[in-house]
């Protein structure tokens, strides 16, 4: 068994590398509740440390930690009704963040709207979109994390994108319809 000193050093390096990724993964899953996301992120990494000696070094740490986060979220969300709705603060938060991308105000507005609409999607759909577009995981990695085959992930993602796009189109039409009626 490795000395604990070496173990801690190795693990804290992993933590610093992946903490924001796991935090974002959880944040999008808990409807942007930051405190909850931070609590769960800490729990995930502590839980992973408890099992770190069992971690197979041949396997990617990235998919291993996402798997732990996925399972931890399932436990957390089971029996818990989402009570935190996307509010103006979150919308403003999302819009403020998009400034970092140097995009136009229209784009910022759009990302705020999409973020808002994502929060209303089913849990599994939201998870797929988050892993793919927020965490930048490949289909192969997603399939490993979720324990599904790659084809299922690909199909699920296509459907998720379509669902979100439909919601967005619907959202736009609802906004433009009053003008059209005039």
């Amino acid at each position: 068994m490795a000395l604990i000193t070496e173990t801690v050093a190795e693990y804290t390096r992993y933590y610093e590398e992946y903490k924001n990724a796991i935090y974002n993964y959880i944040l999008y899953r808990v409807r942007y509740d930051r405190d909850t996301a931070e609590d769960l992120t800490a729990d995930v990494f502590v839980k992973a440390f408890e099992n770190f000696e069992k971690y197979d070094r041949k396997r990617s740490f990235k998919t291993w930690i996402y798997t732990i986060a996925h399972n931890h979220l399932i436990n957390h969300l089971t029996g818990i009704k989402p009570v935190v709705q996307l509010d103006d603060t979150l919308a403003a938060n999302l819009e403020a963040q998009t400034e970092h991308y140097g995009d136009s105000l229209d784009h910022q507005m759009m990302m705020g709207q999409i973020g808002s609409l994502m929060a209303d999607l089913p849990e599994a759909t939201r998870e797929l979109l988050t892993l793919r577009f927020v965490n930048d995981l490949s289909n192969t990695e997603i399939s490993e994390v979720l324990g599904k085959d790659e084809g299922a992930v690909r199909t699920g993602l296509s459907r998720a994108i379509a669902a979100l796009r439909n919601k967005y189109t619907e959202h736009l039409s609802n906004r433009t319809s009053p003008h059209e009626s005039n």
Partner: protein
Amino acid sequence: MNPTNLPLSEQDFEKSLSSLPRFQMSARGDELFYSKLNALIATKRSERYVQEDVQEKAPSLGFGFKRFAFSFGLGLFAVTASFTGLSYRDSVTYGSLLYPIKEAAENVEGLGAFTTEQKVNTELRFSDRRLRESWQIVGSADDTGAWLIQTAYAQGPVSTNSEKAQNLKHTLSEMNNHVSNASRIVESQTLDAKDAVALLDNITQHADEQVSSLKKMREQASVENKLAVHMAAASEEKYLVKLIVAREDIREVASKQGNNTRVRLAQFSSIMPNQDVAGVDSSNGFSASDASNMQAAQSALTLLGQKVKLLPTDEQAKLSARVVEAQRALDQGKTGTAYGLSIALSKQVAEARGVVNVDNQQVADVHTNSSTYVAPQLLPNNVQTNNSVRINQQQQNVNVSAPNQNNNVRVQQQGVNVQTAVGGVSVFDLLNAEPAQNVQVNNNVQVNVPQQNVQTNQPVSITPSNVYITPDVNVNYAQPQVTQPVTVQPQVNVTMPTPQMYQPNATQPVIINQQQSSQVQVTPTVKIQIQPFGSSVNVGR
């Protein structure tokens, strides 16, 4: 792209999703993780790791060496740990399991500083970290993690409160040390005046903020920890005073001789060495309550403001701004900064009046016959400036040398308090901390008309009784009986050991130390009469 009018194509929409915002986890998240990890490791160690790790590494050695071996092991990977940002975790405090990693990482971090500025900034950064760690310790509950670790090692219960207090004391001490190190780095350099001022400015700003923070910490600390925090604040404040004085002195040099004037900082900082700054402490200084400090500083500053108003216009304008700066610091409760500025200011005021004699040699009588020489507000009884009496006062010896041709009255004082001269204002106490400098106090000098004839080489009768000479000497020198200038070369010193009680009507011989007596010409004779404390001392001829 106009999302309000045009539905996106599938490709554009998917592309847009890639720019969904990513968030950075806050410091709170890190705190949560590291505190939980710390507790978990402590538990694991107490269960298993201690035996497997430490005993394996040092099976036959004592507890102290085991701990050292473990700490050394942690240090070995400090280089990699430094990249994890561990050294920036304020939650990792002295006594916690991860602290040796943090210390080792900081050692590595310190190696990256090459220039004076970088070295100073590194020390200040470490000092700020110690301050934040102190806040963590003060604000934390019982340090369970440290207790667990300690228990695991020592195999016995440890007083949690005592451990916490010790950790805080150590951390605060380290904080002071880092500021001290930054100070020493600067002092060892010879720099352009403007660079020196910038470096000192940086250190004093840090120290100033740390003192303010420590004062708040002192309020919140438990009774057990209040003293440690107070002592740390006092220590920091002393450095602050010292550095501000040096900074202002160098700033003055820069204003007179140019920004690029090379200055050796040790020369300036040694003006007020630590032990003399500590004198501030004993003279109702920083060990006193905040309110008391504020009052003393305010009194000193008020006096300085009055003195500044008596200076020539150009000096007045320059130094008034300094008074305002010091007053602003005082209003903000920054007594250390106010003290430092007041000390520097008082020196500048004295220099502007031409009354500072650094090397204790000949003093130029700049302000003879000048109305600005004596502050009317402070001296209702004006000095008769048409006569020349110089009183050199050193500790308990009063040397009266008189008269010379400069028509001046001067008291040179070294190492004694003259509080009564300025109404108990401690600024002079502070000035007395500078051994190389003579402070001239004119405001309490009065010269009386001589009553009797005194001839050199003859005993001098001293009446009346109960003459008690303290540092607060009032010498009245009234209208002279002298019609012609008197030349004394060298000075004739009348040495009177004081304090000493003289009996009524007793005649005390006064030893007149006359050097090169053959050259002494005294015409006419001089009478010195010293009266009881509280009344006047007569110096006559």
